[in-house]
């Protein structure tokens, strides 16, 4: 355990680096944990003192994010990605093997404090999984052999920097490029166009392009930017009672935020954009800043992509040197800069208002809306939040105009879309398609000959079976943020739905009753069916809970948490039916199983020590 002086020094350093600003609490906690291995109570007290905020707020934030720990969690922390695709590719067996060889239980640190092996939500590597985070760094393409080597390295205490480099190799796996990834844009072209055409000129091009947000919801980008640009600061903290009379005397501070919290299971296209096309993303953010009149931007990078943090900061530094970022961009008098904030393991922070809360150093709880971020966003100021891909496209549109873009795709869904394809196909990876492409075409291109189902848009999206493969990927048909998970005829769709239900229960923020309890009830119901005790009554109950969660939840997470269960019940009933027992009711409590402890204590296993099922 670190002594008090070490703790104080770690806190002092981290707090000073972030200006003792409570809005940077998540960043400060991360750096303190980096220095100390975990965030002990003494550190919470010190942070509260330096930031002049109640300790209960610091403790509340520490307790919210998966990657923050209040006690030691091993010198090596190995977290296997729990994505269903990796699950089907052998993740449970690999995890078990590692635990057996290291003589540890899953999720529990070894007695000597050396290692903890556990699971974490999808880490964005399902095109090269099974994968795991080792002390926050992804190790890809795991197999039994690689697990053996890792066990040896851990047991010998070899530092991560001396592990074989190919363990950490992350491939882009770009398989199909179109206008976004196939035609390079000259560095600075988007910013130059923004400076030349000005706010009105660029907004007109974005509007003409028909660009819609690539996160999945598909809100028109030009409309969002225009709302934000017209929003005037009321000088009041985020208020829920709606628009107030505007005081137009002070210049309004506005913010540009890039949502790089790519947490939807099965998606990884933002990883590729940030790894190989970050300039384009930053360029798009700068274009947005020029349009709305922002001086400050944030890239909210999910904690799982931390390995990209230094690289991205290097690119930002280069852009500043080149006059594309910072004060007086390209000598135009327009100034804008970008800071990267790291998340700490919370799917909910991909929801834009939860993301803003996290940026403000708080628990990632979605806000009440209205008001929306375009009027009351970061620190209550007008804020544009867009997806990584949206900004990359905006940069291209700024440079090339909106006309050409609108000619691609469909009338309602213009341009191209990046897909993250994983699962049962020969060539998983990132594919760029014009909107309107059929699922069948995509399956043919990625080499999925034997597909039975595709989960489009991740667990919160839509699952489709063979009968729907002629449907099109577009906002007017199958909307998607990009996740495209393929299941072949051998696969059990019930297991996929059960995995997704666990995911939502695990990632619910806990704020509202229907999601907090409903997602847990859904998970329990699916577990009961999986254990062979499910009946038709349980299925009916799942439907009722699902509908309630969908109708009454606070945000998109809860409203979609029941999608996997409700949709698969509808489309893949056979996978449920074969598991159900033909009784009207079966208790979830197993009396005979409950007696197991008593049997072990008494050393008995005779017939009288058992309760028969009837």
């Amino acid at each position, binding site marked *: 355990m670190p002594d008090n002086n070490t703790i104080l020094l770690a806190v002092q350093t981290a707090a000073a680096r972030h200006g003792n600003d409570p809005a940077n609490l998540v960043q400060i906690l991360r750096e303190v944990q980096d220095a100390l291995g975990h965030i002990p109570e003494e550190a919470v007290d010190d942070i509260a003192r330096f930031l002049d905020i109640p300790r209960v707020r610091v403790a509340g934030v520490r307790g919210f994010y998966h990657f923050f720990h209040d006690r030691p969690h091993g010198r090596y922390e190995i977290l296997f990605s729990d994505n269903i695709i990796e699950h089907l590719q052998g993740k449970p067996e690999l995890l078990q093997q590692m635990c057996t060889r290291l003589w540890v239980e899953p999720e529990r640190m070894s007695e000597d404090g050396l290692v903890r092996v556990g699971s974490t939500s999808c880490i964005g590597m399902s095109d090269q999984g099974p994968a795991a985070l080792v002390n926050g760094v992804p190790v890809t393409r795991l197999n039994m052999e690689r697990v053996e080597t890792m066990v040896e390295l851990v047991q010998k205490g070899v530092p991560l920097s001396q592990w074989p480099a190919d363990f950490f190799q992350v491939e882009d796996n770009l398989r199909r490029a179109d206008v976004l990834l196939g035609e390079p844009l000259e560095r600075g072209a988007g910013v130059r166009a923004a400076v030349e055409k000005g706010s009105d000129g660029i907004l007109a091009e974005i509007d003409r392009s028909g660009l819609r947000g690539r996160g999945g919801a598909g809100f028109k980008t030009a409309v969002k930017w225009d709302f934000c640009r017209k929003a005037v600061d009321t000088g009041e903290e985020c208020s829920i009672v709606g628009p107030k009379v505007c005081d137009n005397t002070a210049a309004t501070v506005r913010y540009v935020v890039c949502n790089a919290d790519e947490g939807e299971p099965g998606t990884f296209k933002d990883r590729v954009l940030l790894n190989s096309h970050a300039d384009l993303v930053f360029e798009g953010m700068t274009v947005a800043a020029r349009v709305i009149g922002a001086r400050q931007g944030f890239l909210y990078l999910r904690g799982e992509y931390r390995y990209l943090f230094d690289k991205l900061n290097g690119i930002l530094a280069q852009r500043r040197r080149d006059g594309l970022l910072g004060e007086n961009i390209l000598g135009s008098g327009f100034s804008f800069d970008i800071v990267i904030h790291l998340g700490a393991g919370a799917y909910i922070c991909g929801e834009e208002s939860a993301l803003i809360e996290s940026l403000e150093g708080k628990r990632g709880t979605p806000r009440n809306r209205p008001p929306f971020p375009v009027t009351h966003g970061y620190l209550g100021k007008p804020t544009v939040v867009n997806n990584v891909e949206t900004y990359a496209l905006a940069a291209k549109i700024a440079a090339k105009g909106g006309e050409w873009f609108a000619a691609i795709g469909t009338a309602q869904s213009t341009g191209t879309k990046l897909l993250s394809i994983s699962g049962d196909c020969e060539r998983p990876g990132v594919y760029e398609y014009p909107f309107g492409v059929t699922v069948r075409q995509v399956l043919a291109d990625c080499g999925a000959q034997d597909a039975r189902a595709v989960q489009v848009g991740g667990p919160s999206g839509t699952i489709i079976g063979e009968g729907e493969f002629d449907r099109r990927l577009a906002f007017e048909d199958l909307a998607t943020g990009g996740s495209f998970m393929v299941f072949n005829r051998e696969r059990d769709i019930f297991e996929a739905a059960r995995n997704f239900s666990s995911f939502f229960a695990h990632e619910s923020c806990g704020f509202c009753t*229907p999601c907090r309890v409903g997602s847990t009830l859904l998970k329990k119901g699916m577990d009961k069916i999986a254990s062979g005790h499910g009946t038709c009554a349980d299925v009916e109950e799942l439907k009722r809970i699902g509908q309630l969660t969908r109708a009454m939840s606070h945000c998109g997470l809860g409203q979609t948490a029941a999608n996997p269960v409700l949709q698969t019940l509808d489309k893949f009933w056979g996978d449920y039916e074969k598991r159900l027992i033909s009784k009207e009711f079966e208790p979830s409590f197993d009396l005979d199983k409950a007696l197991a402890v008593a049997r072990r204590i008494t050393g008995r296993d005779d017939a009288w020590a058992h309760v028969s099922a009837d």
Partner: protein
Amino acid sequence: MSDNTINIDGQTVPFLPGQTIMEAAMAAEVYIPHLCHNPEFTPHGSCKLCTVSVNGRSAAACTMPAAAGQQILNNTEELNANRRALVQMLFVEGNHFCPFCEKSGNCQLQALGYYLGMMDPHYNHFYPARAVDGSHPDVLLDLNRCIMCELCVRASRDVDGKNVFGLTGRGIHTHITVNSPSGRLGDTNLAVSDKAAEVCPVGAIIKKRHGFAVPIGERLYDHKTIREVQTEAHK
């Protein structure tokens, strides 16, 4: 049609600019069931009991701004069935034992259970392991009964200026924590006279030695429904 009215279950209800649907309804003595809402505090919107249908879309009445012409459904069979399910969910996620709870008869969760016709918990109990903190000389904190409404958090922060309470954890493991390094209520500066010590709608925060000052049978909701009590309180 007047500019500043909404329609709730066929009844025309006036509102003032800036009012929420809940505030407008309460002023017109239209009852919308609620738990985490307390008119003295900033609306929160977490329990979702007050979910109504606004022009066909679900919204929490306590946080949704009233806007001219809104067609609102409130006291419908479907909405009340969903509300009942939410109350049942709150019952099973914690450990609520009305027969020997000091708060029985004064408890809003229990009163809503009665009002909404809840006959059983319906779902399997979670039986979570939750802490009881008796370290404070005058106030007991029993997390078994907490429903995460954050009224104590809001009261301590906004009225008492103390920040004694906060939430930590996440998802189903979300729970109240207190503002002391030891994690004990007795080590905070909470005073029994604080707003935070009396605002709890259930029996999670109760004043010691007052549990049975009013005998069971003569308590707030023993002879009146929560609807009557809360509608009268607003008069």
